[in-house]
Structure formats: C-alpha cells, structure tokens
C-alpha cells in the first residue's frame, strides 16, 4: 500500500472533473453546498470578496473551523494556505483534509519560493495565469491547477484571460519542432521535460479548473467551453441573493455546458448575483492574481 503517489494525487483531481468546488465559511454553508451538488468545499474564514473589503493579513483558517466543516459533509474538503507557508500546509495535512490550495487569495508568506509540494502526502492545487506559471507549479508537485482569475470580483474577465493564455500557449507548443521546445522552455520559465510532455499530449499533465470571478451559470459554462475541467466558485455563491438556488444552477450548467437550452433554463429567476467589480478600475496593489510567479 503506497500512499501519496503522483497517481493518487492527480487521480483525486480527476474525480472532481465536471464538478463545482464551492467556498464556504460555516458548516451550514458546507451543507448547502453539498445539497446543491458540490463535488468539494473550500473551508475558509472569509470569502475573497470579504478579504478585499476587510484588508489586513489573510492567513490559513482556524483549524477548529476547518474541522467543523469537515465533520458537516461527506464530500472532500479543501483549505487554503499562504503561498510559501509550508507550515500552514503541514497543519492542514495533519487535520486530514483532502486537498490544499496554495493560494494567492491569502497574503503570501514568501515572495520568492512556493512550497515544495512533492514533500507532502496530501495533494495541492495552485493558481496560474499562463502556461509557464502552471508548469512551474506542477514542477514543484502541484497535482491540480486552477486559473487564478481575479478572486472576489464576480468578474469573469481575468479567468477568461488566463485560460485563453494557457490554451493558446499549448496549441502553439504543438506546432513546434522538437529542438524549438528548449528555447520555448526558457521563454516560459518552465521545466523542459514538462514542456515536451505538454507538446506531445496537447494538454496539461494535470486537471485544470477555472477560478476567480465565476458568478453565474453562464460564466461556469463559458469556462468549461474554453477547456476547463471544472469550476471553483468563491464569493459568487454565498455573496448572491439566493445561494442554494444559484449553487444548484451553477452545478447543472457545469455538467450541461454544451447544452444552451439547459443553461438557459437553470439561469432563470436566480435572484441577484453578487455585485461585481470592474477589474480595470482597481488599483494594481489590490489585485490578487499577480501574487506568486
């Protein structure tokens, strides 16, 4: 019996595909998410929209809260640690949750180094804005990638930018001659072996979800049609007028993303979505996606 192998870590993410992972801040919210059909919950003290408003240093959640949420549901539980804060990661692993998100939504603990994720038994998901960043994280042992988007804005534009950047770069790799891949690895700042693998497969070697700004069923279906394997929805659910109904609608739109009639049907009468932020009008120091590299 071998635990924590690459197959076991990446396989867990494969089982989440086609699903929605929802940010929750209480056990009650976790149960609402599970009832709505979430494939996993992200246990947090504050959703990104509130982290933006309240400011200060955002850290790993209180283990007590994480455990309360874990005990409230049967679906997998994820939690966030700060970029580079490997002791927060050790603590989350010790709590026996299912996946760690080394996340730019929290205040980075290390501006040069991300966590050596191969050193852990528990798998990690990391954010990325482009192919190079995704492959650097995979090189460190991330077993799942998500587009960063711009968390807590309810604005899908950055998530779209990031998945298009990843997808476009992969398609370009596929047109290259083998000797061009080393130069490309240098330009991407990514391990050559992973660049070669992506060029051969035409896809990332791990599952890739969207995140950061998904607020409606149509947003969720858009990200799936652009090639994401599933969706993280943070503030978009519990900052909306009717979270239970919106959560269920986003789950259905993620499954039936290629069926406009179903996406139309589930989009009807959901109440107000979360109020959005125009990313272009935000000062650069308020942006979360540039955290990490």
């Amino acid at each position, binding site marked *: 019996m071998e635990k924590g*192998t690459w197959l076991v870590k990446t396989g*867990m993410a494969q089982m989440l*595909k086609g*699903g929605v992972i929802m940010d929750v801040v209480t056990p009650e919210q976790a149960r609402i998410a599970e009832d709505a059909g979430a494939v996993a919950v992200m246990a947090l003290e504050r959703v990104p929209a509130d982290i933006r408003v309240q400011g200060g240093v955002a850290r790993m959640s209180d283990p007590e809260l994480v455990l309360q949420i874990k005990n409230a549901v049967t679906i997998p539980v994820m939690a966030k640690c700060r970029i580079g804060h490997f002791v927060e990661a050790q603590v989350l692993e010790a709590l026996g949750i*299912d996946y760690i998100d080394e996340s730019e939504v929290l205040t980075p603990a290390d501006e040069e180094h991300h966590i050596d994720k191969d050193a852990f038994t528990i798998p990690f998901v990391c954010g990325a804005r482009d192919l190079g960043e995704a492959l650097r994280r995979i090189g460190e042992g991330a077993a799942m990638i998500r587009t960063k988007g711009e968390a807590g804005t309810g604005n899908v534009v950055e998530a779209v930018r990031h998945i298009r950047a990843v997808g476009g770069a992969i398609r370009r790799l596929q047109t290259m001659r083998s000797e061009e891949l080393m130069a490309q690895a240098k330009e991407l700042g990514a391990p050559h072996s992973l660049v070669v693998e992506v060029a051969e497969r035409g896809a990332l070697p791990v599952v890739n979800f969207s995140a950061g700004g998904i607020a409606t069923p149509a947003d969720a279906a858009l990200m799936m049609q652009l090639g994401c394997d599933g969706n993280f929805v943070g503030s978009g659910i519990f900052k909306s007028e009717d979270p239970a109904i919106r959560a269920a609608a986003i789950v259905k739109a993620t499954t039936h993303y290629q069926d406009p009639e179903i996406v139309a049907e589930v989009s009807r009468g959901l109440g107000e979505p979360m109020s959005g932020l125009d990313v272009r009008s935000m000062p650069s120091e308020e942006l979360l996606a540039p955290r990490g590299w």
Partner: protein
Amino acid sequence: MNVGVLALQGDVREHVEALCDLGLSAKVVKLPRDLEDLQGLIIPGGESTTIGKLMVIYDLLEPIRERILAGKMAAWGTCAGMILLSKDVGGHDQPLLGVMDTCIQRNAFGSQVDSFEAEVLIQAIGDAPFPAVFIRAPVVESIGPNVKVLGRLPSNGWTVAIQQEMMLATSFHPEIVKDRRLHRHFLTLCSLVDA
C-alpha cells in the same frame, strides 16, 4: 456494440479513452435519450452525491435502473459508481440505483492522505495482479448470495471488486492506469446482452 459512460460528473474521459484503446467509440450519457440502444453503461469515479443528485434531476435514475434490471444493459461502477449501484450505503441519505445486492461503506480508508495504490489479484482476468488505485475509496461491507467476490485487498482481505450477473463494481479506478483487462472483461459482459 454500443457502450456508454455516464457523464454527469467525474473521470468520464478516462473511461472513454480506455474503451477507445479497445477499439470502441463510447457514447457520452447526459440525458435519458442517450441510453437508447446501449448494451452497457459505465458509471465513472467522481462524487457519488453529485452524480446521484444529477441523475434524479435529469430523470436518469429510473431508466438506468429499469434497463439494468430488465437485462437490457450491463453496468460497471468504479468507486463512486460502485456506491451508486449498491442498495445500501450504511444509512447515508443519497440517491442510489440500488441494483446490486451489496452494502457499501463510503470513504472506508479515511480522507485523501490515506488514499493509496495496491496490487489486487483478480482471477477472472488473469494471474497477474491488477494495479489498483484507491482514492477516498469505498469498500464492500456485505454481499447477497448472488454476488461474486472478484478481488480482495491483500493487506486486510477487504472486498474491492465484485460481480452480480451483468453488473461489475470496483472500489478502485482501472480507468486511470494503462491495464485494460477490466475494461475488456466488462465488454465481454456487454456482448452477452441481448440487444
């Protein structure tokens, strides 16, 4: 032969690719109309609660159950699929097909840090052990008289692969490894269905 993969959530593509390796173009099943003419259906790994809820919402639960019970369709559940085929999951209130005479324990090994790889001997597909990947895996707690045990975990003897007539269930994920023997075994079951 028409074989489908239930595609509401989970590792659908891996099963489709495994069947493709065996020369079969699988049908992706999202709505009841996709079940027509299927001789076999794979229920993939994923979250059993999510897949079950979506089966209810999109009116798939009854048609799938009826086709299986009428002997019109073979079925194979991997991990979440094993849970969904079973009659009982130890009191959890979740939608189930309830076609296999089994009681399943969900997450029997604990959380993801306890997920593992192990080799499982399954005589029905040959003498070489099968490379099995267990991810937050369920195990079979008890079986009815018409259910056959195909494989047990060597470390503790827990039942992880079973067959009941034209139904197959595994706690682990053959779709994410290269070994195609279990997919081939399932296609043999499908070929016995009177279409």
